[in-house]
């Protein structure tokens, strides 16, 4: 039971970041490596604020905004300086590593074990007991999902989808496709940093390298979700991303349960991603042959 709860908790946190990766990877078709640093950015902002005694719930919007700024940086580098998409993300990611350390005052490790957080202060902490954590994370994740569903149905959301689909249409609509891309990157990295913030409070410490492989986790969740469940028309894509994240986390948990050591974590992360990619390629080839 504890294992299931932990899979759901972490799975729902991954969902928040996967929703962000969904925007860049699926909607914008932009391989955004910024996320490997915007995830710990959210965590760093969160840890410092909690240490300063600020209400943990305030850390959520502040981390969200910090991530947005990271996305803005990548967007400006790509659109205004015309640097290739992959490289723009790598540049921001590299710079952010130092900035994250500046935020925490050069501490590569920042424990917040003894401080209150969004879980200890939750209004149903006593009533739900061990289900409290998963409930809080679920609510935050659900709010993100619903807001994103709503946003994608607005005029601005239509334009975001159009720019990834066929940016010529956006230009012919007399709109600057560059600005639309920047908006997408801002929202995506804001969500990723929010996930980092929640993760930091869930594990109760910040660690500078906690972001390594975030992009892989996000991509794996999105690809599992959209390839396996995306074809079902009654399931929204954002819903399939939730399922994908939980399945991905479950696979990792099973691998560890079967005896792999914690140091093999990244090995599992990478290998599992490879398996998912290969399987989804096979699946695509099968569809093409029909």
């Amino acid at each position, binding site marked *: 039971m504890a294992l299931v709860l932990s899979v759901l908790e972490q799975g729902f946190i991954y969902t928040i970041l996967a929703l962000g990766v969904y925007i860049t990877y699926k909607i914008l078709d932009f391989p955004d490596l910024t996320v490997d640093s915007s995830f710990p950015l959210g965590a760093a902002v969160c840890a410092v604020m909690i240490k300063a005694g600020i209400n943990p719930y305030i850390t959520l919007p502040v981390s969200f905004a910090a991530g947005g700024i990271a996305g803005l940086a990548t967007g400006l580098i790509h659109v205004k300086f015309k640097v290739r998409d992959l490289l723009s993300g790598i540049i921001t990611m590299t710079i952010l590593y130092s900035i994250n350390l500046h935020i925490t005052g050069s501490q590569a490790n920042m424990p917040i074990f003894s401080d209150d957080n969004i879980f200890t202060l939750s209004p149903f902490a006593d009533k739900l007991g061990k289900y409290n954590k998963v409930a809080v994370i679920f609510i935050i994740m659900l709010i993100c999902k619903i807001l994103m569903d709503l946003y994608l149905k607005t005029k601005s959301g239509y334009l975001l989808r159009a720019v990834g689909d066929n940016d010529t249409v956006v230009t012919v609509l*007399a709109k600057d496709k560059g600005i639309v891309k920047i908006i997408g990157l801002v929202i995506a990295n804001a969500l990723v940093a929010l996930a980092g913030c929640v993760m930091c409070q869930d594990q109760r410490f910040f660690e500078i390298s906690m972001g390594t492989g975030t992009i892989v986790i996000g991509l794996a969740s999105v690809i599992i979700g959209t390839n396996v469940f995306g074809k079902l028309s009654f399931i929204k894509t954002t819903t399939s991303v939730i399922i994908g994240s939980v399945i991905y986390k479950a696979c990792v948990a099973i691998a560890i349960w079967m005896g792999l050591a914690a140091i093999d974590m990244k090995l599992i992360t990478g290998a599992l991603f490879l398996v998912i990619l290969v399987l989804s390629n096979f699946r695509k080839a099968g569809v093409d042959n029909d």
Partner: protein
Amino acid sequence: MIKLAHIDKTYNPNTVNETKLFTDFNLEVKDNEFVSIIGSNGSGKTTLLNMICGSIPIDNGEILINGESINKLSEFRRYKRIGRVYQNPAMGTCANMTILENMSLADNKGKIFDLKWGTNKKRIKFYKEQLAQLNLGLEDKLGVKVGLLSGGQRQAMALLMSTMTPIDILILDEHTAALDPKTAEIIMALTDKIVREKNLTTIMVTHNLMYALEYGSRLIMMHEGNAIMDIEGDEKRSVVVDDILDIFNRISIERGN
């Protein structure tokens, strides 16, 4: 009215591949004129359209719409006044969005894309009427993704979308070239209908000599960056395809082909 004055355009300047395409080129298209432009490959037809739309820069000269210079406007800003349909039917629509979503996008051209609902339910009736005039049955498929439609259906939608909001100029860039002959006929007839109904100033580049003669009020033949033939009215009506083919052949002989 659109005016191109003293345009110079050289590709790959100061290299071995230097190609002087336009030297002091002038063209004036009056309001409500429907100009068909023909010419062989490399004659400058597509470059002309791209210069007007700002897709490629000009070296010298000035481009004016209704007397105002648009030289300094970036590509996307020029499209506030220009509608464009491309040769590739996939260019004018978003494949992963539904017909209704595509129509809603086009309907919002020139307005702000804010956080209001992307589709205005009150406009659905209007979209259906617009789609119904295509006679392709698209009005009953509003929820279908455009990527599932045929090339002809997508091009018809692209045409509808590019002319839905008020524009000063419609640019048609070989927009029937990628379609089968029957579909091309339908799209061409539809183009003519829309241009007439909305009194649009239109510039159409085409490889189809029949269409160039049958449709439009003025015919221009381009050759090596010059308009070597520019006829309208009765003179245009009296020309037949053979006349144009003669000129084409003569040009080819001059070039030694």
